Structure formats: C-alpha cells, structure tokens
C-alpha cells in the first residue's frame, strides 16, 4: 500500500470513528476533500452565528437565540434561529435552479428559472416576523416532545422577492383551489429519497396576501444557505414551518395539503382545550394558522444589577401573528399593577413592533420586569402558560427579566 493512501485510509477510518459511520467509497474521495460532516464542526462559524446562540440539536441543526441577542430592530443573520427538519442541501446551483407550479388546481403547470422569477415579476421587500410554532415549548408540563425551545425561536429580518400571488396567477389558479403546499430539496434524516423532511403550506387566502413572498434575498443579501438559499417561501405571522426553505415546487391543491408535517399532530393543537397531559386523537387536532400575540424584552439582558435611584430603560419587540399589537405594558410587581408603555407602528404589516419604557424601582431588592402585549383584537399575553397541548406549541406567556436594585 502506498504511504499516501495508507495515511488517507487511516484518517478516513478515524473520521468514521468520529462520525460513527463508514464512509462508503471513502477510498475514492478526491485528495484534499474532507467529508462535509467534518468540514467545520463549529456551527457558529459555519452558519455565521453569534457564539451566544444555543445549539439544541446538531442533527438536524436546531439553534436558538437568547432574548438579548434579538435587540436589533431588524434581526441580523448572526442572531437568527435555525430550525431544520432534515439535512441542509449541498451543491445548489442558482443558474439551474427552477421553481415549478403544479397541483390539481393549477391551470397550466409552469416552471420558472430564478432569473425568470426576478425579471418577470415585480419585486417587493418586507420585514416579516417568523416564529417557530414550538417557541417556548420547554416550559410545558407535562413536557412536550421535540426541540426544547425557550424564547429565541423568533426573528424579524427583511425579505426581498416576488409575491407568491403573482406567480400563482401567472400559472393560473382554478376556482377549486384550497391550499398551497411547498416541496423542497432538503434530504430526510433517514436519507430515504422517498421521504420529504417537511412539506407544509397554507390556505389560498394566506398564499395570496401581499406579504407572502418567494424570497431570494434576506437583509439585502443572498439568503444564507441554512435559511433557504436560493429560494424561500416567506409567510410572516404564521408558524415558521410555513416559510419553506430551498423551495423548488409549489402545488396548488384542491384540498388541504397533506405533505409531511401537515397531518397527524405536527403543527396542530387540540381543536378544543384539553387538560395537561390528556391524550388527543389525531382527528381532534387542528392546524395552527396565525401565531398568537407575544413580546420579548431584548434590553437589558436578564440579571442586571442597578444602583438604587437609577431608572432602567427597557426595550424590546412585540408581534401578534396576523394582527397588530395595540398596547404594550410592563409590570415590576408580578402583575399586581401594569404600566402602559410606548409601542411603535410596524414597518409594514406582519413586522414586529418596538416598545420601550423607563422603569423606576421604589426600593432595593429583587425584581422581575414582565412585559405584556395586547393585540388589536383585545387578546393579551397570559402570565401563566397558555393551554397545554401534546406537541407544546403556541406558548405566548409573558417574557420577564430578573433585575436587582442595590
């Protein structure tokens, strides 16, 4: 055996030890090529994330922010949570990428290249709040299965693209259309090519909204690979799973889309409220649509120690799914009293809104600052956990930070 090959084989068998699988055809690997799984084991570098982000899962990648990392008015990539159901695709060529519109309710099945999408349709930019349906899952008791998100599975970046409506109308929508469903190129964890990691969608009414776009840019640049490069469906205000990444096909369906994670208990809550831990039959689970009203204190970071007599300037964001936030309040006495504070209008519909306040503390001691948003329909955030559900979705309980006055 040649020395070089020997070294390569020795190295590959060590790789196999680390990643726990044999690398099939490993000896045929090109010189200088390192298997992707090992290219950069540092997810913060690989995805250009703030090192204070929290890795919940590394296969598939699921990483969340902390409240204080979301202080920017427009969330930069470095603080954006990652929620993946499958494996991040490789070898994407934007020059050969196409999007096909098909389904039972399309008039003419059509395929567009990226450049056709960009040139044929008017481009729009919106700032859109995208929150994982399971954000806050970690607080449910009995615990709910899945990634244990705390507060950081939400972001509000700007997205540039073309309206889904314009593209669907160009292909033609039959009058019996009910739902759209997306398909994408990410691989299932089992590597079974017949399985899609996720294929969700939304009713036609949401698909046809001005702000529902097929985006090719995020914050003015190409969308980062892990966030859906080169084409992502963005549907603000709804569970982030509706905003499909790496989308290459959208089906106009004559029924509710039945792709992966549309059925069973995925992204569904009991149609009628249930007691904590109660068993719920699949047919009694209803699809989540708009996300609920919620807010986050992004400054200061929890744990601030303040000198007595000083006031504390707090700020953060509030959002309400399909709706607007009408009122923002905070409390420093565990909800005995609430003070209203200023909340700005959104940059556009479905963008989060910024609030701020100057908080005074009557005496030294331990405090918690709680924030509470109220939506335009009068619904407000609960201080306790909202209705328990088997999969731990829609926890919009008030966010709070700890403060000490000395």
């Amino acid at each position, binding site marked *: 055996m040649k020395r*070089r090959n020997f070294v390569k084989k020795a*190295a590959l068998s060590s790789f196999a030890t680390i990643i726990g699988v044999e690398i099939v055809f490993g000896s045929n690997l090109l010189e200088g090529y390192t298997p992707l799984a090992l290219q950069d084991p540092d997810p913060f570098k690989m995805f250009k994330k703030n090192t204070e982000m929290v890795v919940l899962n590394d*296969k598939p990648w699921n990483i969340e922010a902390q409240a204080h990392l979301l202080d920017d008015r427009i969330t930069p990539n470095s603080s954006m949570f990652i929620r993946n159901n499958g494996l991040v695709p490789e070898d994407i060529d934007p020059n050969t990428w196409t999007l096909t519109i098909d389904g039972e309710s399309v008039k003419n099945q059509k395929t567009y290249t990226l450049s056709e999408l960009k040139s044929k349709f008017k481009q729009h930019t919106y700032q859109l709040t995208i929150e994982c349906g399971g954000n806050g899952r970690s607080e449910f008791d009995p615990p709910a299965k899945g990634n244990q998100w705390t507060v950081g599975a939400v972001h509000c970046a700007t997205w540039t693209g073309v309206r889904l409506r314009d593209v669907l109308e160009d292909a033609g929508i039959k009058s019996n259309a009910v739902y759209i469903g997306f398909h994408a190129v990410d691989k299932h*964890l089992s590597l079974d090519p017949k399985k899609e990691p996720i294929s969700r969608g939304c009713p036609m009414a949401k698909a046809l909204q001005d702000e529902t776009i097929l985006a090719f840019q995020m914050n003015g640049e190409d969308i980062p690979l892990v966030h859906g490069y080169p084409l992502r469906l963005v549907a603000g205000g709804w569970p982030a799973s509706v905003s499909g990444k790496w989308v290459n096909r959208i089906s106009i369906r004559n029924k509710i889309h039945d792709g992966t994670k549309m059925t069973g208990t995925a992204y569904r809550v009991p149609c009628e409220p249930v007691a904590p831990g109660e068993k719920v039959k699949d047919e009694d689970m209803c699809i989540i649509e708009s996300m609920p009203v919620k807010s986050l204190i992004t400054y200061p970071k929890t744990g601030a120690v303040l000198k007595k007599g000083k006031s504390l300037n707090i700020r953060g964001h509030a959002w309400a799914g399909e709706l607007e936030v009408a009122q923002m309040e905070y409390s420093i006495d565990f909800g005995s009293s609430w003070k209203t504070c200023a909340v700005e209008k959104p940059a556009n519909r479905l963008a989060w809104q910024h609030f701020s306040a100057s908080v005074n503390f009557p005496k030294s001691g331990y405090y918690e600052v709680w924030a509470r948003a109220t939506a335009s329909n009068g619904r407000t955030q609960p201080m306790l956990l909202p209705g328990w559900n088997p999969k731990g979705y829609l926890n919009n309980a008030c966010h709070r930070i700890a403060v000490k006055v000395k």
Partner: protein
Amino acid sequence: MSEQETFKALVKQIYRIFLRIFVLLVILGSGLTYYLVNPDLFDASSKAEVVMVPIELDEDRIENGIHVRTGLINAEGLMTVVNNCTNCHSSKLVTQNRMTAERWNETIKWMQETQNLWDLGGNQELIVNYLVTNYPVQKKGRRMALTNIDWYDLE
C-alpha cells in the same frame, strides 16, 4: 592483429557495454526505488503536506460518567441507546426530551411508522428504562422561577 586478439577486443567491448548497462540499471533502479518510497523528493511543486490524523483512541470512552461522543449518561443500556437512537438524529434530541415510559414507547412507535426506525425487539425495554431512569420528567408547574441568573452590573 590476429584473429584471437580481435575476438578478445570484441569480448572486452561487449563486457564494457554490459557493465555500463548494469551500472545504469543499478543507478536507475535505486533512484526508482527511492522515488517509490519517497515520491515527494523529485516533485519540486509539492509542499510539505500536513495530514491531520485525528486520533480517537476509544470512540466510546467515558469521562465523569458521561459518554463523551454523545453526551449521554453512562448507565445500564447506554450502548444500546447509542447504537439505536443516535444514527438518524443527534443524541441532543434524546437528552433534551423528558418523557414517561408510555410516551417514549409511543414516540418509538411513531419513529417506526414514519421515520424508518427498525424493530428494537427486546432492546426497547432496555432503552426506555435507560431514558426514564436517567432523564426523568421534571415538574415545572404553570411557570417556573427564573434560575441560573448571571448577575452583572449595569452602568
């Protein structure tokens, strides 16, 4: 020159030619052998090659009661969990979830029905016992107190 002398001269000439060929062969041969042993010597363009050979002496070593490669607690059933539950997804998905035996069994059934998980046979009980023993359900109530606060002075 006699015929005999001519013949001797010819033999000498042939002998010299053979000797030269032999010497050349020895030089070439040793050069070639050296090249085969150390191919980079004659390659002016080749730079010093740094080959990272990660050395994992024991891929299943335990430190402080934790299986280093997966972060799982070292207890009865550990390797059965490692071998059956960390192939498709990360062990992090296992350790961050706290469930009762009933719900773990339901989850396994779901993975078998939808995610290509194989029949665990007699190992299923061992796996579920490992999970409920080492990752028991924690009571959280309707809202937990804030814990692990990292206090800092705010100027």
